[in-house]
């Protein structure tokens, strides 16, 4: 009657199945790195790593017609990296203040009714696919900007970095807002009470107590937002340029890592040519950069959470 429970075959099978599926999840990360690495290494056999990382000329089209090797020095990715950084910076200049202040308002000032309206509304904003933002940027915002520029006398390209970056910033706002909101709510109410009890105004409490206390979490949020911006594809493919341009002028046209990846891989060339391999090299750079940012960000946030829970 009290015989030990024998795991039925079914249960054993189930157990194995569970382990198996967990293994698959690991397999994914490994295979991402492996496959991207593999193809990228093929590329670096054709084009030296130093040329890629530090070269200033990016024109893959020329490379193909010149020779299949591509060692004509047309795979210097610096303009592409710079373009990505330029657009992401513009996006963050828009998103961080707006996102942070929105988060402050809804977590510190808004009534719970307002909060109940604004938060879901922002989830809606967050749920709009990037292709929609990209379309709007390309068809409405960039031309508008160009037109405005003409009026004032500043030459703005039809596919300016500013247009793409601005719209990308708007897309990132809900992301920063919801992360900052979580982070600020984690600051204990007792600290706020202490500050108010000493006669500080609400804004002083937020600026001098809450935000400094929440700073690591906010930094983590910003890092994640940067990572998001670096990896964003549709907005830049549709609204930013496709030719590499080494410049810091936000009103000129630049290209990004993701846009280049798309152009290189959606042409009619066979898999394995130096063009497609270049896309993998770009992909590897992107993956490693965002991985580093994410790991650091999640580590900061974890330490921050442990402080308060």
């Amino acid at each position: 009657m009290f015989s030990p429970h024998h795991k039925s075959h079914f249960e054993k099978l189930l157990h194995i199945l569970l382990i198996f599926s967990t293994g698959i999840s690991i397999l994914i990360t490994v295979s991402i790195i492996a496959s991207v690495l593999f193809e990228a290494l093929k590329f670096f056999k054709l084009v030296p790593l130093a040329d890629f990382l530090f070269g200033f000329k990016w024109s893959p089209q020329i490379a193909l017609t010149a020779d299949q090797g591509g060692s004509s020095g047309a795979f210097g990715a610096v303009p592409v990296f710079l373009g990505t950084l330029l657009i992401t910076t513009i996006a963050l200049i828009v998103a961080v203040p707006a996102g942070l202040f929105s988060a402050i308002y809804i977590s510190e000032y808004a009534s719970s009714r307002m909060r109940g309206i604004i938060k879901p509304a922002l989830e809606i904003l967050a749920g709009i696919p990037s292709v929609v933002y990209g379309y709007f940027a390309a068809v409405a915002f960039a031309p508008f900007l160009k037109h405005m520029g003409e009026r004032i006398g500043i030459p703005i390209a039809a596919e300016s970095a500013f247009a793409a970056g601005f719209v990308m910033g708007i897309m990132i706002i809900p992301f920063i807002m919801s992360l900052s909101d979580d982070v600020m709510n984690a600051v204990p109410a007792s600290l706020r009470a202490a500050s108010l009890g000493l006669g500080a105004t609400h804004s002083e409490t937020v600026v001098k107590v809450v935000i400094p206390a929440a700073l690591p979490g906010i930094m983590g949020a910003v890092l994640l937002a940067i990572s998001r911006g670096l990896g964003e594809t549709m907005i830049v493919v549709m609204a930013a340029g496709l030719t590499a341009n080494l410049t810091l002028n936000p009103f000129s046209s630049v290209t990004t890592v993701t846009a280049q990846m798309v152009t290189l891989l959606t042409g009619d060339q066979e898999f394995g040519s130096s063009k497609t391999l270049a896309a993998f090299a770009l992909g590897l750079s992107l993956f490693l950069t965002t991985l580093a940012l994410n790991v650091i960000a999640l580590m900061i946030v974890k330490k921050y959470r442990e402080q308060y829970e």
Partner: protein
Amino acid sequence: MSKVKFSKSRKSAHLSPPPFFKGEGQGGGGQIPVDNLSSPHLASPLSRGEGSRWRGARKIKNPLIAKRKAAPLLARRKRRENRFRFYGILAIAFAFGFLGILLCNIISSGYSAFAETRIRLPITFSAGMTEDYFGAVRESLKNHFPEVHGKPELFRLYALISRDAEMQLKDMLAANPGLLGKTEEVWLKASSDADMYFKGRITKNTAEAYRKLSDHQLDWLEFLASEKRMKKTFNSTFFSAGDSREPERAGILSSMAGSLLTILCCMLTAFPLGVMTAVYLEEFAAKNWITAILEVNINNLAAVPSIIFGLLGLAVYIGFFGLPRSSSLVGGLTLALLILPIIVIATRNSLRSIPPSIKDAAIALGASKMQSVLHHSIPLAMPGIITGTILGIARAMGETAPLLMIGMVAFIADVPRNILSPATALPVQIFLWSDSPEAGFAERTSAAIMMLILFLAIINGAAIFLRKKFEVKWS
């Protein structure tokens, strides 16, 4: 988008009221009179006979009331407070304002796509029609505008009616063979340019060289319109046709079917894998450094840019396994990798919220761990799991970049036959159409965006509804 939760508890900005005492209401308890509880030794200010201190004190300025001149610092602080509040409102208004502009723009440019223009012409259903259906249209137009001569002008005249009229007449004849020999007034689909004219997008205000329609063409259309031979009808083509070179024949059917198949493949892969992984990690795996790394791994996967998953799909599914490019299977499998972390995280959170007492109760009754998980934990966690899955579907539905990478950029006119045939997805269709210069495609792109947003709204709404309905409060 990755939803990394920073804190589980929600501490309000304001202090919460202390635990409320269990009062019996007002005036409860005993009938004890409330004393004036000043001690007899204490002189309360208002009971003092002599005026002195207090009355005199009233003449001294109340230090608690700050006059502007006397306390510029306080005034500055107040101003800063108001400014600060204002910035918050400004930020929110900015975000929503932009959203409003975006939506208005899309809707105003897209709503007209839901109507298509038709032109009524008398069509003679002759026996030789089956060779060349469009010929009957040409005949009709020639008869209607006898003054038009010369090939170039005649071509321009014929260009007013869509080539789709062929299918239309063919279908009419097939449905009703008795039409043979008769002449009927048929509402034929107008070409895209004529459609744009009727919707007011092409007018004589622009110079002829910059227009898609010549002056003559505009005159003919005006004439037809004045004869009440032009009308707008519901654009069912948009929902019943696949992609096409001509805007008036283009629809979202093939891309919607592609989206559906892709998401189906995606869910059939991601859901079981995700739930099982989460169950294993949460319930069975020992809490050691391996599981810690796995957790970090999954959280990081959630933040990897989606285009990288496209690269993976390209390299592994297409390059290594040789699966057909741009098929819904490959698309689905690629998106599955993207969605997997979302489902895992949602399932884990859902499982964590179940109080251990329930699982303990099952085990105390003699159930094995597996049984308690299968029969108790999973069913109880199901609402959270389903909600997370639905949000994953919403995410998958809007993804474009990975699908571009695996080749879904081709022109797909037909509904995909199975998961291995070439397909495209709705967001990709939007991307492809956005490149086309025709005004007809511009309005259809906006209309397709409206449909996409509508579907996403429904899906997200379903998730919120389910979440509210099945929210179990573990007291």
